[in-house]
């Protein structure tokens, strides 16, 4: 029997593949990788591309990853796939967007205050009305 290596492909949003493989191919940042059982421990970033898994049954499975990390231990391969396309400038843009969002929220502060005040006033008015209603009822009896 051919020896196998355990392969897990996971992303933050779910497990994609888990099972035995005779060979795993992936596109590393520094070149194509072919991982056979008892490969030396390796850690690398993945480039966007295909991960190909050859199963002991002779099937080939293809998965697309938009990047991620690949860890190799002698008896297992772990692919931590990214769900999002990652790049330094994209991340930077996301951070800027989050900051802008916060500034926008802060700019709304005046409006938010008014709204909260209005809500408080409304609640007060409603309570007063309810109290009046109760008083009127009591007076009726």
């Amino acid at each position, binding site marked *: 029997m051919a020896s196998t290596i355990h392969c897990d492909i*996971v992303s*933050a*949003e779910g497990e994609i593949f*888990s099972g035995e493989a005779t060979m795993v191919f992936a596109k590393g940042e520094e070149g194509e990788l072919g991982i056979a059982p008892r490969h030396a421990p390796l*850690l*690398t970033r993945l480039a966007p591309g295909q991960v190909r898994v050859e199963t002991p049954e002779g099937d080939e499975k293809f998965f697309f990853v938009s990047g991620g990390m690949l860890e190799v231990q002698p008896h297992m391969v772990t692919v931590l796939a990214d769900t999002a396309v990652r790049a330094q400038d994209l991340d930077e843009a996301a*951070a800027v967007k*989050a900051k802008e*969002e916060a500034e926008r929220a802060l700019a709304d502060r005046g409006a938010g205050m008014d709204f909260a005040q209005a809500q408080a006033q409304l609640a007060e008015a409603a309570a007063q009305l309810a109290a009046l209603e109760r008083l009127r009822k009591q007076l009726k009896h």
Partner: protein
Amino acid sequence: MSGSREIVGKIKSVQNTRKVTRALEMVSASKIRKAQDRMEASRPYARMMRQVIGHLAHANPEYRHPFTIEREEVKRVGYIVVATDRGLCGGLNSNLFRKVLGELQGWKEKDVAPSLVVLGRKAAQYFNRIDVPIAGAAQGLGESPRIEDLIGIIKVMLDEYRKGELDRLYVVYNDFVNTMVQQVTIDPLLPLPPATEEPMLQYWDYLYEPDAESLLDDLLTRYIESLVYQATLENLASEHAARMVAMKNASDNANNLIDDLRLAYNKARQAAITQEISEIVGGAAAV
């Protein structure tokens, strides 16, 4: 008779409210399931990630990433507050905010400045009103939040931590225990606790492509992101559970109210009839 007509109007309005609360209850009940599935699905990633980080810590003990170094002096702390976009979910958000305020108060006494990033419209609204610096915000994540939506706010915090402007980072969210119980939870994110796994028997190290530092940095960033992502999912499940319970209570209250109003209506009706009869009888006697 005018009294009874008023009551009928009120019964109608309460019935309409009950329709709404029932509908909300059922919608939330169906969404809990999906949110729980999503929670389950996100777990393997975090587990694998922990495993790899554990391996890395053993293989490479001499290099210590800034995220793993405990800073002795704490001058600023960061909180990632995960709340909901929508209301009508009972005390879920207010409990969370109260807990955060308590924490902030505690840090203030120690002369430590806080910094917040907020997730969810409710958190933005709430923390806008009090004087806390908000470094980042995100809202409108919807039913299936994606990591992409979180990258920005997390990066804001991680960058500050790298620059030494933050010494601690926490994430605050509602942990989904079960449908009835949601627990406000504050998890420390940074500094990362040292890995506690059984020591390996022999020395080995990875082949790194390209180099250990940048890989470790990427790994730890993704690890933090996955933790915050999980917190978001937990909070989402909690939101639906809390809304379901709150809406069920509202429907029950509406039922009670309708019962009371029916009783009042019947009494008013009977009183009117009695009065009419006695008037007729009185009239007949007078003739």
